[in-house]
Each structure stands twice: as C-alpha cells, then as structure tokens.
C-alpha cells in the first residue's frame, strides 16, 4: 500500500508534464519481480476502454489464452494461461502493469506476448517491426481493467 501511495504521489508530481506518447518502451523501469511502478502515460487508465483492448483480437487478444468470466459475452476463451478471474485481487497495479508490458520479467520464458516492448521475436513482419502491440495508453487502460477483476 505504501507502494501505491508512492506511485500516486509521483504521478501527481509529473502529471503536469504528461507524456503524450508515453514512456518509450526501452525506458520502462522494472522492479525485481517484474513490476512497473510508474504509469507509462500519467493519464489514469480507463477500464471500459481497457476491456475493449483486452478482447480485441488484433490488440490484446487476451482471451486467446485466458478465461475471463467478466467477458463471458465473448465466445471462446482459451486455456493456455491461468484464468484471470480475480486477477485484480491477486496482483497489485505495478505487477499487473509489468505483466502486460513484458510478461517475461515476471514469468521467465512465458509464452505470453510482451505487449509494450520495442524488439520482439526474430523475423517480425516489417509492418510490425519496432512497434509495440499495445500503445502506452492502451497498456494503462488494460491495467485499469484488470484491477477491476476482483475475487468474488
């Protein structure tokens, strides 16, 4: 909780200079357990928008691998990863941000894509090369959405 308020204070301090593009992928700072304390944009995430990016097959496509009862209106939830029901109770915001930005910092060798990393696998198609899967604000929105997934 100390962590949360610290983040909030820092965010407030720099919010006046909110970054339009967000922190560059290479400049994101990770904690020891893969967490990312600082918001990538200093603009509060929008959970409703986050849910859209979460389900969109061309963006998060998180349902490809995860069951999420909160999105039960969407058909076909994958089972490659754990169910995300209650993820917002199991993980804090910084850890969730770290997971979405670059899951490999939390889970070594994870199959889960790194959604905000400049350099991905070999032979990345030209039109995606050097690009992140989600934008900085989309990451913040998805994180804000994940936080709402509380244990019943």
């Amino acid at each position, binding site marked *: 909780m100390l962590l949360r308020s610290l983040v909030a204070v820092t965010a407030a301090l720099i919010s006046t200079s909110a970054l339009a593009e967000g922190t560059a992928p290479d400049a994101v700072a990770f904690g020891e*357990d*893969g*967490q990312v304390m600082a918001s990538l944009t200093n603009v509060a995430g929008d959970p409703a928008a986050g849910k859209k990016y979460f389900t969109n*097959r061309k963006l998060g*496509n998180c*349902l*490809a*691998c995860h069951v999420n009862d909160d999105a039960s209106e969407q*058909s*076909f*939830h*994958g*089972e*490659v*990863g*754990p169910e995300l029901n209650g993820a917002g109770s199991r*993980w804090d915001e910084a*850890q969730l941000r770290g997971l979405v930005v670059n899951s490999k910092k*939390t*889970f*070594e*060798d*994870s*199959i889960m*894509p*790194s959604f905000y990393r400049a350099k*991905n*696998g*070999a*032979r*990345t*198609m*030209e039109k*995606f*090369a050097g*690009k992140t*899967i989600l934008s900085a604000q989309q990451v913040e929105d998805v994180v804000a959405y994940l936080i709402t997934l509380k244990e019943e």
Partner: protein
Amino acid sequence: MKKFTKTLTCVIAASAFATVAVADEDAKLIINDELKIETNVAASADSPLDELFSGWVFRSNETQLMQMDDFDNPSFIFVEQAEEQFAKVDGTEGKACATCHEDVASFKGLRTVLPRHNASTGKLDTMATLINDCRTDRMGAEPWKFSKGKMTSMKALISLQSRGMPMNVAVDGGAAEAFEKGKELYYTRVGQLDMSCANCHEDNYGNMIRADHLSQGQTNGFPTYRLKNAKLNSIQGRFKGCMKNIRATPYKEGSDEFTALELYVASRGNGLIVESPSVRN
C-alpha cells in the same frame, strides 16, 4: 511476489488437457469402415514428446467424421483430378506420368520417408521437388508452383498410396545437418508475438487457444483439406500460416529453412500413421 517458472503452466496445461481431450481421445479413426488408423502412438525414447497424437484427435466430431469416409472427404475431388493429370501428356517430350510410372500404387511407402536426403545433390528431396524434377527433366514441362492446386493434388494422390503406414524419416547421415537446422528453427521465438513452434505445439497441445484446439502440429495428414480455405494445403503452406499468425515473416515454400523444418517436424512424428489426405478446420 515470487518469480514463477514453467511448472505453473505445466500443471495448468496438464489439468486442462485431462478435461478437454478426453472425449476426443476415445474416438477411433476408421476410414471407409475398414482401414483402422492408430491416432495415438508411443514416442521414441529421444522424442521431446511423451506420446504422439495425430492432429485428427483434436478436431471436432464433424471434422473427424468427414475424414472417415472418402465420399465425405472433400480431398478426394482433388485426388480424382490428380488421377486424370497423372495420365495426361504434358511437356515437350510427349509424356505423361503414367508413361513411366505405370501404376501410381508403385509410390507406396514414399510418403513415409520424405523429406529424404539426396546424396547426389546434397539436398533434401521433398515430394514437391521429386514431382517437379520429373516434370522439368523427364517431361520437358513447366514446374508446378509449390502450393498451387496441381501440385497439392498430385501430392495427395501419391501420399494416399502410403495411407496406413507409419512415418519413418531418416535424420542421420546426410540428413543430420538439416535436422539440426530444423530443430533450431522449431525452438526459435519469432514474430511480434514472440513465440516458437514449441510454445504452442509442444508446451500447449490439448489446450484451447481461443477457438482452436491445439494439436502437436504433426504432418502425417498432409496434404490437408482445410474447411477454412476449402482447398488442399501443403505442409510448408501451413508453416507459413502459423508464422504469419504470430506476425513473423514466413520463409518461402521450398526454401532450405522450411525444408529443414519439414524434416524436423516429420521426425517428431516418426511412428504416427500417414492419413493423407486428411480433413482439418
């Protein structure tokens, strides 16, 4: 919070597999009420897989059923076209395949050993290169494009002659180098989504990835009629699709890379029964 390792996914994968694939595992593949095809066989001691499964096991009941009768299997429209083509004169030499290969049944067993190292060229022969060699060198005809209809149909006809026989590609001797190369490609993470073939087909077979039930990505059923594109698909055409899905630039069909990968993937399925031409979604 602790760092988690692979074991977590392994546990999840194992339990998910138990609940999802059970129904399918019970289904038996018997074609035309007479040819029983074993779809789950033991893996060799040096295999990275505990046991081998045909991709047929992971398909829906409807898709499975289509493959159980040649009248319901749409591949056979293309097999018939290939039979006609086999007898048709083509090229400057005035010859048909049948001029030299009297009975297509003489190709029995060929499918199980391809790709195969060719000592005189130092390269791997695939069914596509063997067919095109005959066309260009023996018939004076144009080579067929690798994934075009005439080629995949002819491959289906020739592969059908080996239906029911176990895959048995050689990976030693001259093939060893290609095997190693193929193996490296199989485990290399590629594309913006940063995944290797193994991430899906070794670590997660039996799991649903969105609406798809992941198989081991075996090649014993190729060419494959896919409901998705309503045509026969080649092995390397499938590799291409999988790479594109993870936003990676695929290699070209017929490239050394894809041919090495084809050998490596085929070797992972040594012992699985040829069921070409198969039906998949």
